C-alpha cells in the first residue's frame, strides 16, 4: 500500500517539486556553514553548492571568537536582546492584562489610540530628532526603548489572555486576589504558551535589529553584531576588521580566506535563531505541523 502511494507518478512529481523548493532554502545555508568550516586553502575554490566542509578547519571561528570588535558586538547584541525583550514582554503583559479586564471604562479610546499608533509611521527624521532631544543619541538605551511595545503582538497577547477560563478568574476575584496577584499567579502561568511565543517573536526582532542601531549607536564599541556584519558582509568593508590584525595570531591571519571568514560571521549571527527555532515549531506552528485530520 505504502509503496503504491510513493510510486504514484503525481505524488512522485509533487514530492520532487517540494523537496526541490526545500533544497533551495537549505542548501545556501549549508553551503555557508561548510565554507566556514573548511580550511582557507580549500574554501577559496570550493563549489557554491557544496554542503560538506572540505578539509575541516576551525580557523575562521578562531578568528571570529578572538576578534575584539566582533566579540564585543556579540555581547552588545545579547545585552540589548535580553534587556529589550524583558521590557517588551513586561509592558506587553501589563497592558494586555489591563485591556482584557471586562468593562474597563477607557478600553475603547485606548485601543483606538494604540491602533493609530501602529498604523501611522511618522518617518525617520522626526523620530531621529526625538531621540536627539531626549539625549539618547549614542546610547544603547535608544535602541532598547524605541521598540518597547509592538501593538500587533499586544493584540495577540490579549487573545491568549482572553483564553484563560472565566471561572478560574471569577474564583480568583471571589478570593479577593489583587490585580497584580491575578496577573502573576493566574493569568501568566495559564498563558505560558502564548508568553513563550510572543517572547520568542520579540527576541528575534531584537537580535536581528540593525537599522536603528546603525543610526543611533554612534560608537563602534557599543554597537551590535548585525551592524558589524553589515559592514563586513554587505558593504564589503574588510579594512575595519583587518585593522585589528595585530591582535590575532599572525599565521592565522596570513592564511585567511575572506569569504569563508564572512561565512563564519554569518553563522555566528544565525546560531541564536537556531536555538529558539524549536520553540517556534513547538508552540506557534504546532497545528500546522500536525497536518490534516484526514490521515
Amino acid at each position: 500500500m505504502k509503496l503504491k502511494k510513493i510510486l504514484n507518478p503525481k505524488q512522485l512529481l509533487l514530492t520532487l517539486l517540494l523537496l526541490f523548493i526545500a533544497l533551495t532554502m537549505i542548501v545556501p545555508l549549508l553551503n555557508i556553514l561548510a565554507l566556514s568550516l573548511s580550511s582557507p586553502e580549500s574554501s577559496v575554490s570550493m563549489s557554491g553548492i557544496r554542503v560538506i566542509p572540505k578539509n575541516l578547519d576551525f580557523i575562521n571561528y578562531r578568528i571570529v571568537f578572538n576578534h575584539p570588535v566582533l566579540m564585543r558586538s556579540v555581547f552588545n547584541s545579547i545585552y540589548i536582546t535580553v534587556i529589550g525583550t524583558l521590557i517588551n514582554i513586561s509592558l506587553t503583559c501589563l497592558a494586555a492584562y489591563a485591556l482584557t479586564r471586562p468593562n474597563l471604562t477607557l478600553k475603547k479610546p485606548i485601543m483606538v489610540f494604540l491602533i493609530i499608533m501602529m498604523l501611522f509611521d511618522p518617518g525617520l527624521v522626526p523620530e531621529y530628532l526625538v531621540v536627539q532631544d531626549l539625549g539618547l543619541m549614542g546610547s544603547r538605551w535608544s535602541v532598547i526603548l524605541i521598540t518597547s511595545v509592538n501593538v500587533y503582538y499586544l493584540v495577540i497577547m490579549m487573545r491568549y489572555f482572553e483564553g484563560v477560563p472565566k471561572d478560574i478568574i471569577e474564583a480568583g476575584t471571589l478570593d479577593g486576589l489583587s490585580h497584580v496577584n491575578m496577573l502573576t499567579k493566574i493569568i501568566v502561568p495559564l498563558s505560558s504558551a502564548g508568553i513563550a511565543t510572543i517572547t520568542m517573536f520579540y527576541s528575534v526582532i531584537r537580535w536581528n535589529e540593525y537599522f536603528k542601531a546603525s543610526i543611533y549607536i554612534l560608537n563602534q564599541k557599543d554597537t551590535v553584531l548585525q551592524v558589524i556584519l553589515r559592514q563586513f558582509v554587505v558593504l564589503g568593508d574588510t579594512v575595519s576588521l583587518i585593522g585589528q590584525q595585530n591582535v590575532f595570531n599572525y599565521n592565522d591571519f596570513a592564511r585567511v580566506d575572506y569569504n569563508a571568514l564572512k561565512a563564519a560571521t554569518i553563522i555566528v549571527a544565525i546560531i541564536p535563531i537556531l536555538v529558539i527555532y524549536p520553540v517556534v515549531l513547538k508552540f506557534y506552528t504546532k497545528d500546522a505541523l500536525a497536518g490534516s485530520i484526514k490521515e
Partner: protein
Amino acid sequence: MNSLEKKERRKILFKKLKSEKILYLMLLPTIIYFIVFRVFPIFNMRLAFYKYNSRSPWTFVGLKYFRMIVSSPDFLQILKNTLVISFMKYILLFPAFPIFAILLNELRSSETRKLVQVISYLPHFLSWIVIAGIWISMLSVNGGVNEILHIFGLEKSIDFMTSKDWIKWVLYFCEGWRSLGWDSIIYFTAIIAINPSLYEAAEIDGASRWQIIKNIIYPALVIPMVTMFILNLGFFLNAGFDQVLNFSNDAVLSSIDILDTYIYRIGIQSGQYSLATAVSLIKGVVGVFLVLFTHFTSKKFTGKGVW
C-alpha cells in the same frame, strides 16, 4: 437631563475610574512609550514646512520642500521604482503562498511534508543582513547559482548583484525565498480546518483531486486571501526597506532606489532633515489613505475591517 443628574453620573464615572486606578497604572508605561516615540515624532513632522535650525527655532518656509521634491527628476524615478517593486512582489508572491499550502496538503507522506515545513519556515527568522550575505555569495560570478547555470549549458557567468536587469528579480526571488513557507501557514491552517466530512462526501461522489481542490479547498482560502491582500495594501509604499538597503550597491542603486532608502540617504546621511520629512509626510498621508481605503473596502466585502 438636568445638571444634578449629570453631576451624579460624573461622580459614578470618577469613582469607577478610581477603582480601576491600578489597571491604568499598568497601561501607563505603554502609553508613555507611544507618546514619547510616536506622538512627539508626529509633532516633529511639521518640519516639512520649516527650515531646520539646531539651536534657534525653525523658520517657516511654506511649501518650499514639496516644490523641491516635485521638481526633482530623482523623485519620479524613485516613486516609479517603489511602485514597480511593490507591485511585482504582490503579483508574483501573493498567489505563491496559497499554492504552496495546497501543494503541501496534497503530499501524502507526512514525514516529507513536515521536513519541507520545518525547512521552509526557517528563512523568515533570518535578518536581511544574513539573507543578503548568503545571496550575495550565492549569486556572485563564482557562486552556486552560476555553477548550476553552467551545468545547464550557460557559458558566460551572470553577475546578478550588479546587473540592472537582474537586481529587481533578485529582490523578488529573495523575498519569496524568505517568506514562502512562513506566509503560507495562514492558508495551510485554513486547509486543515476544513471539515473532513466534506472530503468524504466528495470521495463518495467520485470527485477527482483537482475537483476537490477547486470546490472544497479553494473556497476555504478566499477569506484569508482577501484579509492578507488588504492588510498588505496599507504598506504598499514600503516596498521592503531593509531588503533594498542591503541588496543595493552603487551599480544598481538607480534602478532599485525606493522612497524609504531615499529618505534615509537625504535625511540621515546628508542631513537634509526638512526635505526628508516632507517625503515622509507624503508617504504617511498616502499610507493613511490606503489603510482607510482598505478598511472600508474590507468592511464592505467581508464585513470585517482592519480594526
